[in-house]
C-alpha cells in the first residue's frame, strides 16, 4: 500500500482500441509497493499495448476503464507528467535519437524531474558512472548517440541504465529480456534485482520464462487476446514453460463450455 492506503498501481477494466480495433478487452491488474509481477503472453496478445497505454501513448484510444497510480487516475495526464510522477517504461523497441548523447539525454531527463530544474553536472556524472559501472557498461556509452546504431543488447542495457539513473517508483519492462544472450541477460537481471525495493514496484513483460529464473516474480499473470486470463505464482510460469500456452487455451475453452452450458441450463 502507498501512503494513501491505495495500491501503487491499479488497472481496472481497461479497454483499448487502435484504428478502431479493440485490442485490450478489459484488463484488471493490481500491483503493490515492493512487489514484482510478470505478465506473460504470446506475441500479439496485447502486452505492449497495455504498457504503452499506461505510459500515455497518443496513438491508442482508451474505450473504458482506469489506470491509477498511487490512487490517482493518470489517464488524463500527459506522458511526461506520468514520467515525472515516477512511472517508467523500458521499451521493447527503444527509439534512436541521432545527435543526442546518452549523457545529455539522461541529464535532461533528470533536470526535467528535478525541483528547480537543476542537476549539477558533476553530481550527475558521478551517478551516471556508478550506474554504468554496476551494469558493466563501457564508459564510452555516455558519449554515444541514444540508441543510434546500437545492437539489440545495447539498447536493452541503455533502458536499464536509464531506470537506474531516473530511479522511478513503477518500472514496466517490456521484453527487456528478448534479444539478449545469456551473459547480457544475467547482467540485466542483476540490474533489475538491484532495483527491487520496498518502495518500488516492477512489472516484467515477457513471453519466455527464461528471465524469471533470474528475477523471481511474486505474482505471474498470463495475458491472452487482450485480457488477463490467469494469475498465480512462479509455478504458473513454470507450467507455461512446460506445457505451452495451448494448455491455458484448452482450459479456457472448457471454462467457456461450462459457462455456455450453465447459461443454456438457465434458459
Amino acid at each position, binding site marked *: 500500500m502507498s501512503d494513501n492506503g491505495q495500491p501503487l498501481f491499479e488497472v481496472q477494466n481497461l479497454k483499448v482500441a487502435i484504428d478502431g480495433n479493440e485490442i485490450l478487452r478489459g484488463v484488471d491488474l493490481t500491483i503493490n509497493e515492493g512487489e514484482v509481477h510478470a505478465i506473460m503472453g504470446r506475441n500479439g496478445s496485447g502486452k505492449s499495448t497495455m504498457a*504503452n497505454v499506461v*505510459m*500515455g*501513448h*497518443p*496513438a491508442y484510444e482508451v474505450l473504458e476503464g482506469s489506470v491509477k497510480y498511487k490512487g490517482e487516475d493518470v489517464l488524463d495526464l*500527459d*506522458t*511526461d507528467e*506520468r*514520467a*515525472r510522477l515516477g512511472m*517508467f*517504461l523500458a*521499451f521493447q523497441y*527503444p*527509439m534512436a*535519437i*541521432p*545527435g*543526442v548523447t546518452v549523457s545529455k*539525454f539522461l541529464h*535532461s*531527463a533528470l533536470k*526535467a*524531474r528535478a525541483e528547480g530544474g537543476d542537476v549539477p553536472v558533476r553530481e550527475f556524472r558521478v551517478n551516471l558512472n556508478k550506474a554504468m559501472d554496476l551494469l558493466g557498461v563501457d564508459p564510452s556509452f555516455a558519449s554515444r*548517440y541514444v540508441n543510434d546504431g546500437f545492437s539489440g543488447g545495447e539498447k536493452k542495457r541503455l533502458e536499464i541504465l*536509464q531506470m537506474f539513473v*531516473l530511479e522511478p517508483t513503477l518500472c514496466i519492462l517490456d521484453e527487456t529480456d528478448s534479444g539478449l544472450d545469456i551473459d547480457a541477460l544475467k547482467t540485466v537481471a542483476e540490474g533489475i534485482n538491484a532495483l527491487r525495493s520496498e518502495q518500488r514496484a516492477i512489472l516484467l513483460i515477457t513471453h519466455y520464462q527464461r528471465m524469471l529464473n533470474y528475477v523471481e516474480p511474486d505474482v505471474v499473470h498470463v495475458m491472452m487476446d487482450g485480457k488477463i486470463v490467469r494469475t498465480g505464482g512462479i509455478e504458473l510460469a513454470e507450467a507455461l514453460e512446460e506445457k505451452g500456452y495451448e494448455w491455458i487455451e484448452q482450459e479456457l475453452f472448457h471454462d467457456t463450455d461450462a459457462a455456455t452450458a450453465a447459461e443454456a441450463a438457465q434458459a
Partner: protein
Amino acid sequence: MAPETEVNRPELNISDDYKYGFHDPEKPVFKAEKGINHEVVEQISEIKNEPDWMRVFRHDALDVFFSKPMPNWGDVDLLNAIDFDNIYYYLKPVEEQGKTWDDVPEDIKNTFDRLGIPEAERKFLAGVSAQYDSEVVYHSLQEELVKQGVIFLSMDDGLIEYEDIVKEYWATAIPPTDNKFAALNSAVWSGGSFVYIPKGVVVDIPLQAYFRINAENMGQFERTLIIADEGCRVHYIEGCTAPTYAADSLHSAVVELFALPGSHLRYTTIQNWSKNVYNLVTKRAVAHENATVEWVDGNLGSKLTMKFPCVYLVGEKAHAEILSIAFASDGQHQDAGAKIYHVAPNTTSRITSKSISKDGGRASYRGMVKVYPGAVGSKVHVECDALLMGENSRSDTYPTMEIAEEQVQVEHEARVSKVGDEQLFYLMSRGLTEEEALVMVVNGFIEPFVKELPMEYAVEFNRLIQLEMEGSVG
C-alpha cells in the same frame, strides 16, 4: 564570445578619422542618398581614397549590374520585390543613423534578453551603436598574429596597405559579371575582411571577424578576401548567433578564398538577420594542389537567403567540404546549397546540407557538382537531410550533377523526415515536455553542424534554436 573589455566610443561619424591606416582631414562629409548611380559610386570611392583601378572597377561593375537582368530562377517572386531605388548603398546620413534603442522591435530585444547578450553588444547588434569595440582583446590578438606575419584587416584598410596582394587576387574568383548581386557588391562594397596567412603558418585560434567588427563590417555590401599561402592552416569565423537587426533590407556580400598548395582553410559563417532582410551572398573558393577548403555555413534569419558556397578544385588532390544548415520558419525562404567544380584529378568533395522547415517555412537545397574531363579519380559525396515540422512547411532539393569523366565516384543521398511521434513519446516517457522533446530531436539533427563550431558559438547556436522552437507545440 563577449570580449573582456569594452571601450565606449562615440558613434561612428563619417567625417571622423578612420581607426586604422589612412587619414584624410579634408574628407568631404558624405551626402548619402537613396538609389544607385555612378555618382554614388564615385563618392564612395572618393571617400575611401582608393587607388584609381578600384574606382574604375566599381564603375565597370555598376554597368554590369545595370545590364544584367534579375535572376529568373530561385524565389523569383521574392526577388522581384526588391526595390533597388529605395536603398542606401553606403552609410546613411548621420541623422538617420541616430536610431535609438526604442526603435528596436520588442521581439529582438526579448531575444537579446533570453540569450543573455551584454548591454553594449545589444546596442551594436541592434544597429543602435555604430561601433562595437573590443580594442584590447583585439590588439593583443593582433600582436600575436603580427609576429607570425598574419595580416588581418578590414578590406578597406587591406586595400590601402597591401594594394599589390589585393590587386593580384581581387575579383579573380568572382568577377562582377558572375551574377547581378556580385556586380552590385563590386560597385558599392564597403567593409569585410582582408586576411593573408604566410607560408607554413599555423594559426591556432580562429580569426574572428567579431573582434574587429564595426558598422561597415556588418554592412550591407561587405567584401572579404582571404589568401592562405602554401602549407598554412587557418580558421576564419564571422557572424554571430544573436539576431542582427537591420533596417536595411538588402545585404549582398562577396567572399573570395584562395587556398594555395597544401593549405587548410576553413570559413565559418553564422547569420541570423532579422526577418525583413534579403541576404544574397556570393562565396567562392579556389583550392590548389593538396589544399583543403571548408565552408561551414549556418543560416537562421532573413526573409530570403540565397547562398551557394562554391569551391573550384583546380589542383590535384584538392579537397572541399561544404557543411551547411538552414532554419526556415514562417515567412522565410532559405535557398541554400553548394557548388563544387572538380577540375583536377583525384580531387574529393563532400557536401552535407541540413535544413529545418517549420510552420510554413521553406528550405531549398540547390546544388551543382561538376566533374570536368580529365578529373579522373575524383570523389563526390552529397548528403541532404531535411526535417519538416508543423503545417505547410516545405523542403525542396534541386541537385544538378554534370559528370564529364568516367573514372569518378559519385554518391548522393537525400532524406526528408518528420519528427516522429514515436521519438517524442520515447523522450516524453523520460519526463521531457513535448517542447523539450522536440528541441532535443532538433538539436540532435543539427549536431553534426554544431560540433564543428567553436564552443561558445555552439552553445549560443543551440540556445537560439531552442528559442526558435518555442511555441511550436500547440
